[in-house]
Structure formats: structure tokens, C-alpha cells
């Protein structure tokens, strides 16, 4: 008992001695005291103008980022990437579908291809800096929140209230997981659809879901690793760093980028208590290969298959068909086709050197096989390559069978060319391809595609990391990885055959010899 009392006192004393930087917000400015933010604000851009009155360089900084441009020049491959320039196998492409897709853009008003990317007041400060949790962009308003109460989903009777812009403006602060997550957890049109390792469970993940972001543990924000300066955020999925050989990131000596495991844990992270062999895997494996044994572990499912070819079906009453599984996930949606969802997904593994080749709009495809949306480069002999875990999104999507290009379907819009209006693929594909200055032959079909997503989040507690024998056994997890000999998994089968035959043959030989000696000895005794 006395011990307990002592412990309580010590604990209390420790709490009282918490350093000042560990308590509460650290900002030196209370935005509620700024007259400029009293409002009322008619719309988002007028809030931005108020922000820019003090933060004079903020919009200029953002204009340079991928978050703004949705374009990414890959220095490694020379490819022009970014949401604006690539095709995917979720909602396929942004072009001609702007107002819907750009509800996740950090700007206001990207409703067609004439959007002025140089406008400073079109930058949406609030979506990243709201701390009230009440700011939401309206799903179909090109990045604007709604300024009047509106129904969403349309005609379902549920009212979506406009946010209180002045109140939000007065309560801005550093971005939290919720800010980043408001887009990144819902990519592809819903919770967990796209990434599988980023979904709504990451707003407040528990220890088992993500040891770093564990809300009651380390409680990392996104920027703890994705360090930010001048609104540029470290870490890119277009040009990921597959192998960090710099070791622990030290200010002044390295790049200040914490978006790799090694930048904090070093390249010999397992410590003296562990089997030394573990650290020796660093030259071949990405950390996440063992430490994210499964993704979509937070209790949400992720989309693994999307078949556009079956879209447009109606039920026996002529009503658009939607089928949901027992957990409430749509497995069929007349607007989008068939889906497959999965939780606790075992990743697929590939050699990866950080180079990703994307299928871009207008690029010719080989339609005799599954079409790669992106190609993961790297191999066993490349010192920059590591074995990485991937979510592989598969599905079927429309393409022009004569020009052999993936279609850019015009899905969203009030015009009759939009697929979700007329449900006519021919018109939708023509309108979409026209919007990106591509010809359409008039013939289309659907083709299977696959899209690789490196898995980096949802790092599991170390007890749940992969054990050796998950890979070091016949048909283990890395069975399809070639270019290396893995004890327990690989062997020369004929050597095993010859070896065991030799051993058994020897055993048989000495047994025969022994038996013959016994017979001979018996004969001698009788004789």
C-alpha cells in the first residue's frame, strides 16, 4: 500500500513537471483575436484573402506543390505525372470529371480545364488548417464547401449544413491527422477505397493498427514523418525512396526528411537484444515488408477489385441496382459496376527501386494481357532495390479497342454525355477522350488492369511483425520473388533428390550388409 501511495506521488510530481512544450498548442498567435477573421465570410476565397493578408507567401508556396498542381514531374523517369496526367483503375481519370474529383483539391473552383492555377485566393487554407473538425468541402462543388444547406446524397433528404467559416477561420492551427485524412483516408470515392493503409481508422488508430499514430500512445501526426517546410510535404508516392541508405536523419547533415523508417530508426534498427540476422535483412527488404504484415487492419475494408464493365444494371422493378454485403459495403453499384472489398489483406511483394512507370493519358497499351496502370521497377541485382509490400488494385475498365488507349470516361456532370446521366459508354468515352484531345475510334471494350500501391502505413506492433518462417518456408510469402536464394524456401530439387537417394541408398546398403552378416554368422554357428 505504502508503495502504491509513493508511486502515485511520484507520478503526480512527474506530471506536474511536464515540460511546457508538451502542453497544449504552441502557437504564439491566437487567431480568435484577429479582427480580419471576424467574418462574416461569403465564401472560401474571402477567408483565404484574409489569411493572405498576414501569410503573404503561403499561396505562392502552395502553388508549387503537387497538392495544388495535381501534376508531378518525375525527375527520375522524365514522366509528367500527377492526378491531372495519369489514368487509374478507380474513377479512372480527373479530366472531364473535375467538379467531382476536385472536391479533394486544396483549391476552390477547379470545375473545368480552364481553372486558373495562378489565383492566390483559390487556395483553400481551411481544409488543412481547420482545428474544429467542422469544415467540409461539398462532394460536387469543385473544392468549395457548400454555402447554403444542401442535400447529400441528392434527393435522399439528408441536409448537409454549411460550415461556419468565421468560426473555423478563428480556430486555425497546425494540420492534424483529421485534416490530412479528410482527403487521404477517403481517396477513390470513399473510406479506405484507395490505399488500404490509410482509412478512417487512422483518425484515432489504436496500437495494433499503427504503433506510431496510436492515439493513446505515440500519437504521431502525419507531419512527424512527412516533414513540411514552406508547405512542401516530404514523401511522394510518385517517386518514393525505396532504400534509405543515409541512416538516421541528422539536422545539417542529411535532408531533414523523416518520411522513411531509416531516418529515425537507422539502418541497424533491431538492437543487440535481437537476432543479428534481422538487421542483415535491411539490404534486401523494406522495413514495412515485415512490419506491415497486413493492411486494412483498422476494422475497415479496402477496395481490391472494381469492374466497370458490369455498370448500369437495374433491378426487376427497373430501379438502379445497388447490392451491399453484410458489413454495408457495396459489392455492386449500378453507377460503377462490381466491387470486391477486403480487410486484413496480405500484401503482394515485388522488388522495387523507387522507380514507377505510369500509364498516362493517350499512351498505347498492349491489350493482349493485363494492362499495368503502373510498372514497379527494380530487381535483385540493383543495389537500390528492396523487396516491398504492395496493395495491387485490380479491375476492368474501358478502352478504345482500335486506338489501343485506356479510355477517359466522362462520368460526372449534368450533361447527357456523362455516363452517370445517360449510362451510354460510347458517348461518355467520346466526351472524355475529346476533353483530353484524344481521338476515339468508336469501338470500346473493357480490359483488366492492375495498379501497385506501396504499403507504408499501419505499422504493426513488433510482436506482430512477420516471423522468419512466414517467408523462410516452402511457398512462403516471398515465393514469387526471384533473384535470391532464401533458405527454407528455395532449393535445388534434384540436389535434394540425389542427396536423399544417396543417404537412403547408403542406409539400405549397410542394412543389407548387416543382414547378410547375421545370416552368415548363423550358418557358421550351425555348420
Amino acid at each position, binding site marked *: 500500500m505504502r508503495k502504491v501511495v509513493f508511486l502515485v506521488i511520484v507520478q503526480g510530481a512527474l506530471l506536474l513537471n511536464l515540460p511546457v512544450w508538451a502542453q497544449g498548442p504552441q502557437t504564439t498567435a491566437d487567431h480568435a483575436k484577429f479582427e480580419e477573421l471576424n467574418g462574416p465570410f461569403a465564401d472560401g476565397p474571402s477567408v483565404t484573402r484574409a489569411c493572405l493578408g498576414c501569410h503573404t507567401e503561403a499561396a505562392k508556396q502552395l502553388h508549387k506543390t503537387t497538392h495544388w498542381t495535381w501534376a508531378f514531374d518525375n525527375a527520375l523517369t522524365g514522366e509528367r505525372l500527377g492526378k491531372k496526367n495519369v489514368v487509374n483503375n478507380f474513377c479512372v481519370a480527373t479530366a472531364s470529371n473535375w467538379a467531382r474529383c476536385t472536391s479533394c483539391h486544396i483549391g476552390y473552383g477547379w470545375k473545368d480545364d480552364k481553372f486558373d492555377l495562378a489565383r492566390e485566393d483559390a487556395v483553400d487554407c481551411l481544409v488543412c488548417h481547420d482545428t474544429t473538425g467542422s469544415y467540409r468541402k461539398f462532394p460536387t462543388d469543385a473544392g468549395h464547401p457548400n454555402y447554403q444547406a444542401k442535400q447529400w446524397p441528392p434527393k435522399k433528404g439528408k441536409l448537409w449544413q454549411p460550415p461556419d467559416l468565421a468560426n473555423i477561420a478563428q480556430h486555425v492551427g497546425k494540420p492534424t491527422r483529421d485534416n490530412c485524412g479528410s482527403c487521404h483516408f477517403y481517396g477513390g470515392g470513399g473510406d479506405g477505397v484507395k490505399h488500404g493503409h490509410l482509412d478512417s481508422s487512422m483518425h484515432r488508430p489504436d496500437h495494433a493498427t499503427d504503433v506510431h499514430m496510436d492515439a493513446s500512445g505515440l500519437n504521431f501526426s502525419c507531419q512527424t514523418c512527412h516533414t513540411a517546410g514552406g508547405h512542401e510535404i516530404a514523401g511522394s508516392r510518385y517517386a518514393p525512396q525505396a532504400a534509405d541508405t543515409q541512416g538516421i536523419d541528422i539536422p545539417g547533415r542529411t535532408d531533414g526528411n523523416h518520411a522513411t523508417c531509416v531516418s529515425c530508426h537507422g539502418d541497424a534498427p533491431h538492437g543487440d537484444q535481437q537476432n543479428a540476422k534481422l538487421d542483415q535483412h535491411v539490404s534486401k527488404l523494406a522495413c514495412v515488408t515485415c512490419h506491415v504484415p497486413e493492411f486494412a487492419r483498422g476494422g475497415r475494408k479496402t477496395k481490391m477489385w472494381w469492374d466497370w464493365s458490369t455498370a448500369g444494371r437495374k433491378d426487376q422493378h427497373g430501379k438502379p441496382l445497388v447490392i451491399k454485403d453484410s458489413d454495408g459495403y457495396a459489392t455492386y453499384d449500378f453507377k460503377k459496376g462490381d466491387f470486391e472489398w477486403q480487410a486484413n489483406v496480405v500484401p503482394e511483394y515485388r522488388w522495387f527501386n523507387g522507380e514507377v512507370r505510369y500509364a498516362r493519358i493517350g499512351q498505347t497499351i498492349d491489350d493482349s494481357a493485363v494492362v499495368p496502370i503502373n510498372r514497379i521497377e527494380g530487381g535483385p541485382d540493383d543495389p537500390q532495390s528492396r523487396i516491398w509490400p504492395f496493395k495491387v488494385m485490380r479491375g476492368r475498365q474501358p478502352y478504345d479497342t482500335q486506338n489501343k488507349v485506356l479510355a477517359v470516361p466522362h462520368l460526372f456532370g449534368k450533361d447527357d454525355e456523362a455516363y452517370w446521366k445517360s449510362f451510354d459508354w460510347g458517348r461518355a468515352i467520346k466526351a472524355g477522350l475529346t476533353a483530353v484531345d484524344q481521338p476515339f475510334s468508336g469501338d470500346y471494350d473493357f480490359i483488366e488492369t492492375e495498379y501497385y500501391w506501396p504499403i507504408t502505413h499501419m505499422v504493426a506492433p513488433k510482436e506482430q511483425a512477420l*516471423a522468419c518462417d512466414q517467408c523462410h518456408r516452402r511457398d512462403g510469402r516471398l515465393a514469387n520473388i526471384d533473384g535470391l536464394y532464401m533458405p527454407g524456401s528455395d532449393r535445388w530439387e534434384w540436389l535434394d533428390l540425389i542427396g536423399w537417394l544417396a543417404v537412403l541408398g547408403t542406409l539400405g546398403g549397410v542394412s543389407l550388409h548387416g543382414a547378410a552378416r547375421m545370416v552368415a554368422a548363423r550358418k557358421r554357428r550351425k555348420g
Partner: protein
Amino acid sequence: MARTYLYSRFLRFWHWAQALLVLALLITGFEVHGSFVLFGFERAADYHCNAAWTLLAIWFLAWFWHLTTGEWKQYIPSPLHRIIAMMRYYGLGIFKGEPHPFHKSQWQRHNPLQRMAYLSLHVLIGPAVWISGLLYIAYPYWDERGLLGFGLTPVAVAHTAAAFLMLAFLVVHLYLALTTSEKPFGYLKGMVTGYEETHDESLQPSSRGGDV
């Protein structure tokens, strides 16, 4: 019959330590190879490495011992006719109850076939195991040293092949050691106590000098 002191203390220690370690290495090694599951891969690999380092240390000692004591001479091959005599004995004489054509003494511990067998164990199988094994263990450092242009495969294959040879050797060794002595388990007893019952020297063709 006479009681001859054949196996010195070091020799017996070396023999039994080696026996234990080789057995442990075979078991854990074939588990690491994926032939069966016993300890689980991680522990098997761990035990295998520890046993390997220990055996290497003992081998090192044994080579030193052989060289400094002159015991290495026990492995010099015998003349062909003596080898043939031994082969004839195992192939024929042993069935007829003929006397062993070879006489053991402290400086003639091995019969001509044993000489060949142990010589190949020490200069072929052993080195094959430990050269491939050391390369195997050192694999993570190949790259940084820029030493070898090939992958782990040839090393692993060589190591596995050597392990099969070792296992086959062990089968023959156990058979001969446990069944061919005059009294049941006589050789086994000899390897424990150091003393072995040997025939009176005068009844056997002398082998001292002639072979060495």
C-alpha cells in the same frame, strides 16, 4: 587379447563434441533447408550458427592438435594391397568369420579404409562444409566488401550437398562402429574409455612401420 590405450583424452573429447555438434548441425541444418519443422526456422537457424561456430573452434583445435602431435600421420593412405585386403574383408571375409586383416595400435589406429574415409572427411567433406558455411554466414557482408559476383545459390547448394555427404558418411560410420567390433559395442566402449581390446600382436601381421 590385450587392452590398448588408443584414444587419448583430447581425441575422445574431440570425437564426441564433433559427434554432438555434427548431429545438431544436421538436424537444424535440414530444418533451415526446409526439410521438416522442429524448432521453427528462427531458432533452428540460430542454433545452427552457434553450433557451427563451436564446431569450427573445435576443428581448429583439432587441426592444431593433429599437426603438433604428429597424429596427422594416422591419415596417410595405406598401400593399395592393404586397402584391397580391407575391401576383401568387408566384402567377403567378414561373412566367413575371417579374422580382421588389420591390427590396431596407438600409432596405427585406423584400418586402411578408415584412413581413406577419415582423410576424405577431414580434407574434403569438412572443408566443403565449413568453407561454404563460412561464406553462407558472411553473406550479408559480400556486397559491402565487393567480394563475390555470385548470389547465395551456389554457396547454399554446395553447403547442402556437403551436408548430404556428411549424413551418408555418418550412416556408414555408425554401422561399422557399432556392429563390427568383436564384442558388442566394443568400439563404442573404446571411444568412451580410451581403451580397446586388441588381438595379441604376434598373431597378426605387423603393420607398424610398413604403412607409415
